[in-house]
């Protein structure tokens, strides 16, 4: 994106005093919501600091959209509290109407009003706020330039492509300089190429403007690109909160490990515990013994003889013995299939009862369809 937003004055209206520094822009405390007879959101605690980009990530039905809509004020929680800039916005008996929350929101369907031009769509929030005509004109123009729609200002939405409508929705959400920007799977209706492009563009915009963002998606790649912190949700609860690196490399649970990236899960039994080094030696059911790092909490309870599941990413499984292996003799595996994908080979191998997916730059050497697998040093991680 060229010359991004440099010219736009982006001081969110409430970020003034230094006393606010420690106050979260958004805080959720024990948030709960039952829809029908399922607990859609079942006790969520989250703080989002000013300028931060947080992504709610999870499969459909995990409660991420419900959470977002509670923040927006379209759904009232059954329990818990929502605070915006330190002020109560929702609890079970009170709900500030959406229009009084000073938020911006980009909808999955874009929700661009078909009867208004691009300009009128973007200007709406400023009009409602009672700004002067000159101000509205100037700010609308600036925001449209920001999303590169300056040339289409007088078109109707029906005359725009999906991607352009998406930009209108974004411009409309940004125009009022909201204290918090909500995005509900905004890219899911775009085609694959455009989606990938928009990810990076959105992230650039968010960083340059320094706008606080809560983003909902089920797409892990989107989450990795867009997030300062990812909140992985499942069945109405938070499984893990962490930076993209943390949730990818050190998932807190089997679910997180399986949901983000491709995961090979190897079952085994703890043979030795090294609490100082933060790792355990796991005797894999598939054969061989492997030193694996582990979460502290799990490590505290781990004793030799207890069961463990080791997570290995496809690119962390090697077909050649590394210099300083975490293993003794390598795990024996049999060849199942091989696919050439340009920059690597995608191999399927059978180790014990488990089917493993391996991404390798080399084809590896097999004897009678057999080979030995090695974990890249320091990459093994216990998920449970």
């Amino acid at each position, binding site marked *: 994106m060229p010359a991004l937003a440099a010219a736009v004055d982006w001081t969110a209206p409430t970020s003034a005093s230094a006393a606010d520094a420690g106050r979260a822009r958004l805080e959720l405390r024990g948030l709960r919501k039952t829809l029908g007879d399922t607990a859609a959101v079942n006790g969520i605690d989250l703080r989002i600091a000013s300028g931060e980009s947080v992504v709610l990530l999870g499969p459909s039905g995990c409660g991420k959209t419900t959470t977002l*809509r509670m923040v*927006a*004020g*379209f*759904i*009232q929680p059954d329990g818990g509290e929502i605070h915006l800039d330190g002020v*109560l916005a929702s*609890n*079970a*008996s*009170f*709900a*500030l*109407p*959406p*229009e*009084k*929350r*000073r*938020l*911006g*929101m980009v*909808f*999955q*369907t*874009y*929700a*661009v*009003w*078909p*009867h208004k031009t691009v300009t009128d769509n973007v200007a*709406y*929030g400023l009009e*409602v*706020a009672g700004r002067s005509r000159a101000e509205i004109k100037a700010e609308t123009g600036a925001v449209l330039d920001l999303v590169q729609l300056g040339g289409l200002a007088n078109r*109707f939405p*029906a005359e725009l492509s999906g991607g352009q409508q998406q930009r209108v*929705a974004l411009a*409309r*959400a940004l125009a*009022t300089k909201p204290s918090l920007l*909500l995005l509900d799977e905004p890219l899911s209706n775009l085609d694959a190429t455009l989606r990938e492009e928009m990810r990076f563009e959105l992230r650039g915009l968010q960083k340059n403007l320094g706008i606080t963002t809560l983003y909902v998606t089920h797409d892990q790649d989107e989450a990795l690109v867009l997030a300062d912190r990812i909140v992985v949700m499942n069945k109405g609860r938070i499984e893990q909160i962490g930076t993209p690196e943390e949730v990818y490399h050190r998932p807190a649970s089997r679910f997180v490990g399986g949901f983000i990236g491709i995961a090979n899960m190897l079952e085994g039994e703890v043979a030795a515990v090294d609490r100082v080094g933060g790792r355990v030696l796991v005797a894999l059911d598939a054969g061989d013994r492997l030193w694996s790092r582990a979460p502290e909490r799990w490590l505290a309870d781990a004793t030799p003889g207890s069961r463990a599941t080791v997570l290995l990413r496809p690119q962390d499984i090697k077909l050649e013995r590394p210099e300083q292996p975490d293993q003794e003799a390598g795990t024996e595996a049999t060849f199942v299939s091989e696919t050439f994908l340009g920059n690597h080979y995608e191999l399927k191998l059978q180790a014990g009862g488990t089917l493993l997916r391996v991404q390798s730059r080399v084809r590896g050497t097999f004897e009678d369809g057999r080979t030995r697998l090695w974990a890249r040093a320091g990459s093994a991680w216990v998920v449970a």
Partner: protein
Amino acid sequence: MSEISLTSRAVGDRPSVSLLRRLSALQPVRFLVIGLSLAILFALIAYPLILLTGYSLVDAQGHLTFETFEKAFARRGMWQATVNSAWLVALVTIGACALGIPLAWIVARTDAPGKALVTLAAGVSFVIPTFISVISWIFLAAPNSGYLNKLAIDYLGFETAPFNIMSFGGLVFIEIVGVYPLVFFAVNAALNNVDASHEQAARILGSNRLRTTLTITLPLVRPAILSAVILVMLDALSSFGAPSAIGTMANFSVITTKIYDLLKFPPQFNYAAAVAMPIMVFTAISLLIQKYAIRAENFRTLTGKATPEQILTLGRWRWVAGGFCLIVALVTAILPVGALLLLSVLSSFGADIRLDNLVGKHYALIFDENFAARASILHSLLLALATATVCATLGLVLGWVVERFRFFGRELIGFLVMIAYGFPSIAYAVGILMGYVELFYGTLTLILIAYAGKLLPIAFVLVRNGIQQLSTDLEEAARISGAGWLRSIKDVTFPLVRGAVGIAWVLVFSLSLRELSMSAILAQSDTQVMPTVVLQFIEDGAVELAAALAVVIVVVSLSMLGLIRLFTAKKTTAVA
């Protein structure tokens, strides 16, 4: 899915929430709107129906009894009227299907010539109410003086008049012509929506064209046929105009005309209510069947698009089918409309059709200041304006409340409105009469209440569908932008459903103009409307005047319907 619950739960107050902030979240206007619309709905629909049921079940002393039914049906001719009604319903339903289904198939799936003509004819005969087509058919097929009969005797060598419209058979014929468009349009639309791939999949698997039609196409359009059949049955059962006009002359009765007779001076409310009960029960059962039996089949939502590949080339049969189309168009539209126009300018019924016999005196008389017809035109226009405005407004508010609010009783609104829809006009009018006669006796307001209640469902369904198609996101986007809910309606919802509201307004206006069954019961000498005057003219034998006034009704309705184009041709209304 704006779902801030209306009943704020009695959880212990948090001191952190100030009273002011709390009040700002309450939105009292919302309560007011919901409360008011529910109240109006109860007054318009629930109250008259409860009264009607009540009256049929209590005697003069106020005791619960079934005696009213016994006495009502023991009256002379009542049983015969019930039998007549049953025959009418059965014959009309069979006839409408026999005519409508093959026509729909020919139009949707063959290359027969004259398909456009059939669609047009069905539209015309749908727009013209039976109490008007009766006039045409009296002109064409009255036993002695009907012009078709004269033609047959003078030129075709018939000994006696071959047609007699003033008979039970004539009534059945007129009713069939009036309702077959329901079947035709429903089945035609369904056939057009059967995606070619469904049928092609069967053909690929070795099924021939006939077998494919019977095992794939027909089951797919069955729900449409069943829905249409139910509508036709209800229509035939509650029809009043043609049975009244023909029944008076041919001396027979059906249930609806019996109800009308019971309300003549001195009115016998209890008996009228009791006689209306079978119609109500039949209606309720039909609607239940509709809801459960047909909806259950609606997994087969037809969303495809017919393609040229589905069109059957008829070959030699093409001209047979074309001839059928032509005859249908001639008999159901061209002849009646032509007859009506001709009669309205003919010096007198029975006169030879010659240029010097064509006069404008009937129209002059209708617009004459000193003649009752002129007042009825004004009344009708006034009522149509008021009814259309009331219904469009109520439809908008109710449709929006039902689609956008979640509260206890939300389903009740839709339910009440649909009851009014299925409810036979004549029975509903009896209910309105009982409920409001003391307040509004002899005023146009009384008629307005009846029109509004009966036609509200049409406005409601149209506007509700319009709102349903609007993604709630559009309104929520306005809320997030800082607009309150009232403003979000003004800026987003209303501009986007304006088209649907406009169409509803025009439709209700047109339907009000031609409403007869309720008007006949509710209108007094000072509050006559066009349809009641037309009926009076027919019964008095002044068919030329009836024709002239009927032409006025048809012309005004048709030109109003033309306005619909105004509301549909807008590029911005295309909402995904």
